[in-house]
């Protein structure tokens, strides 16, 4: 792969019915990366969890809109002990401003339903960065997995 390569740009309506299609697109995009099934499954799960959070919390019940998923391969710097990184950038256009607190994992010793999505994202990915969109409403979540 070249130094920086866009593997996927996919815009879709933020709703639960789209998640199967999203996962399929993501698997197809990740196939040339030559990673094990376990690594691919974990990355697909983490990105899917991030989309679920956008659907449930950023858009919620009262707002509607799209999600744009961009997947990019970035080569590692010379002398660095990783081959490169996969960057998953999720952009939403929701009125709700997602804050860093909402992306924190909850303690796993609390056995209760819910709140596991952020733990999965933080566990699978090496970097999780949240920022506002530069223009207009919405949020950008960038997930990085070093390989």
């Amino acid at each position: 792969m070249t130094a920086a390569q866009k593997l996927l740009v996919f815009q879709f309506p933020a709703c639960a019915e789209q998640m199967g299609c999203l996962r399929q697109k993501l698997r197809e995009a990740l196939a040339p990366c030559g990673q094990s099934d376990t690594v691919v499954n974990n990355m697909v799960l983490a990105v899917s969890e991030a989309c679920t959070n956008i659907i449930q919390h950023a858009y919620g019940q009262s707002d509607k809109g799209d999600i744009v998923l961009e997947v990019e391969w970035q080569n590692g710097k010379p002398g660095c002990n990783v081959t490169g990184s996969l960057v998953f950038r999720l952009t939403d256009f929701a009125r709700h401003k997602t804050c860093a607190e909402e992306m924190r994992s909850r303690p796993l010793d609390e056995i209760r339903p819910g709140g596991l999505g952020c733990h999965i994202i933080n566990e699978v990915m090496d970097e999780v960065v949240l920022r506002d969109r530069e223009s207009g409403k919405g949020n950008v979540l960038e997930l990085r997995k070093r390989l």
Partner: protein
Amino acid sequence: MECTVRSQTGFDLLELGGEVDLQFSHKLRETILGSLKTGNPLLIDMAKVSYIDSSGIASLVEGFQTAKTSKLQYGLLNISNAAMQVLTLTRLDKIFDLHSSTDQFKQKLQ
């Protein structure tokens, strides 16, 4: 997602399969809680689960808590690799009662 409850001698067996995500997890939740309401122990066969996310896991956890409160046996059977990967990530593999055969679960009922 496929989600069918079959009545067995002394317990209910829920056969779960396919992709369990945000679109279907509410159906799984209703099925689990509906089954537990009958007062029968519940065993969930997860051999055919090809994908499960945190919303599906949340339904399993809610069932676990409800069964515990109702003092009913509740277990997971033949967990697929895909589902085990998620249970391990969320450390719930140490919490749920995992079984590799229905006989193993039946022994707990005695």
